[in-house]
């Protein structure tokens, strides 16, 4: 999350993403992923900047912010809301659920005082549910930023959460 959240920052980000992926329709989602990666979410202003580079019909449509917004809201890896410093991903799929995920989810919400999709007022945590991460062998699974924790129990949570500043 290094890009500048200034008008020029968005401009530059959009320029680089377009340079890298091009302006054909199949570049749209990669561009959005790139922006999301950079900012941790997709600021609407960045959409506007991207749109400016697509100022001619792409395929059978003219790309407007609306289409980019529509994509960003469809795909779960893309967020339209600013997120906390640490993103807690909880797998809510059945494999984790039957191995004790239900209890972990309750505990996680209580300990962070957050519901799904919320970000704490101090901007430290965002709690996000996800579908299967393919680590079902060690469910229930919680991922914090880049770190994956398997076989999580409610009891282990305080220790895990305490590792993050």
């Amino acid at each position: 999350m290094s890009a500048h959240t200034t008008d020029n920052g968005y401009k530059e980000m959009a320029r680089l993403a377009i340079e890298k992926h091009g302006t054909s329709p199949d570049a749209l989602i990669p561009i959005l992923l790139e922006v999301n990666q950079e900012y941790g979410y997709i600021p609407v202003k960045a959409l506007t900047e991207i749109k400016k580079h697509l100022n001619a019909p792409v395929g059978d449509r003219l790309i407007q912010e609306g289409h980019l917004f529509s994509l960003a809201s469809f795909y779960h890896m893309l967020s339209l809301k600013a997120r906390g410093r640490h993103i807690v991903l909880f797998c809510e799929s059945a494999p984790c659920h039957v191995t004790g995920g239900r209890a972990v989810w309750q505990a996680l919400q209580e300990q962070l005082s957050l519901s799904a999709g919320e970000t704490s007022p101090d901007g430290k945590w965002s709690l996000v549910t996800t579908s299967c991460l393919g680590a079902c062998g060690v469910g229930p699974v919680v991922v914090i930023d880049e770190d994956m924790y398997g076989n999580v129990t409610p009891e282990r949570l305080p220790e895990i959460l305490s590792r993050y500043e």
Partner: protein
Amino acid sequence: MMEVKVINKRALVLVSDDSESRRLGSQELLQALRTEIDRCGLANEVDLNTIVDVGAKNLLPLVIIYPEAVVYGPVHPADAGRIVKEHLSQGRVIEEMIVPKHQLTGRIAWLAARSGALPAAQRIVLERAGRIDPESIEDYIIYDGYQALTKALTQMTPAQVIEELTISGLQGRGGAGFPTGKKWEIVASTSGSKKYVICNADESEPGTYKDRVILESDPHSIVEAMALAAYAIGADEGFIYIRGEYQLAQQRFQKAIEQAQALGLLGEHILGTDFSFHLHIHSGAGAYVCGEETALIESIEGKRGEPRSRPPYPTTHGLWGCPTLVNNVETLANVPPILRRSGEWYKKFGTPSSPGTKVYTIFGNVNLTGVFEVPMGITLREAISIYAKGMKNGAAFKLAQTGGSSGSLIPASLQDTPLDFAATRKAGVSLGSGALLIADENTCVVDLVKVLLNFFRFESCGKCTPCRIGTQRSYEILTRITQGQAELDALDELLKLADQMVRLSNCGLGQTAAVPIRDMLKHFRTEVEAHIQLGVCPTGVCPMRVEAPAAEEMQPLASA
């Protein structure tokens, strides 16, 4: 994180125990076997269980031993010592006791078709997994890599490539089991100056991660397979749509593409021939529905992953409207071995109706979780006993769900159904992606199905009415049942919703979202009714009271 498990050889012994078998001494046989197993110190390696309804009376009581799938019968208590010593201890099949295959009837008739070789020797898809450096093309080449491509480009016509696949009997491993050779044939015979090959690596079925293992451990096998596919159908461009969460797989695949390009195995004039093929990675961005091939194509085209109406199918109107071949990772992984050896060779594995191997992931309330590759046609009971080393904490098996969220709920009574395309279809069970979620007696089926529907109502693309609204209404009813707020007619309503989803949805997502509901009401109706009529959750999982508002408020995204 997850490694490919080295599969321990363990055995599952099933003794027929219906009334006729009992009359003929099956209980005594069981006792004798248990004694012998204990005496030989094999109690931790062998699972002993019973089976009913096995057909032919003159063979009773009979004994089935997995993984060899050998059937002995009739077996007397006196034979117990020999079976344990020779077969279970020393691994020697007792030929003279084997029931001739043509005598197998009833629910074990399928065993006649089963190949008896040991699973460990039958790795096709995961042949190199864990044995080579996935980031080294040299390793891949040393282990027979790119031989199939070389052979195809230099010695075979595209038609011959397809012919070989057709002979092999390979079926799509994405879940539907469509014959791969036939699919290639259709795309090859569709006219069009531009065609595409797409590898569907948007592996999103919960619990399924076999494709990730393949891509992470043997990426070149997919590069090679896609090039073969392109050659066969006349494409010069391909996309692999890899799930966005699979960062390592994407990195390794990217590296594989670059290495292959550097060696002239991708790009223009591959191996000096007229054949050119360009391969791109397209990252998913988090949408289960993009596993549906037309949604995946829409997604590559920079749109929301909304499945298209079919027909026309991608084979004729796919990416950018061009004929497009879409195959799953596992399917493609089978292609180079088939072409390197032969279709006939491949057909020797698995069952006649479903040749080859299948890669499964197994997890849930079992002792050992992981990935394993076995011939088509093992039973669920085998998978749990042998590969997952039994149920965790000795709890009783209650149900399995195959194939991720969209799969079937398999009750204990169907544990002995062989897992191949034909047999599962016949039993009304979907084999799906090869995920095996094993749940024990502490699992509440209503709670589980509620979780599944919660998944679907968010993963539905929202395009068609039955899926978008049907999943939501079903979820609401299930929630009411877990809260003790439902009346009995809720079950009729659930069935009606399930029927609408199955019959009227635009794509497989809406259709399969109904499967768990139907299976629940088919196999576990008593348990569901207990929630409603007695006001109790038999497993004690459901709250049986209103904890939170049943339907969440939906906030418009618009600021307005």
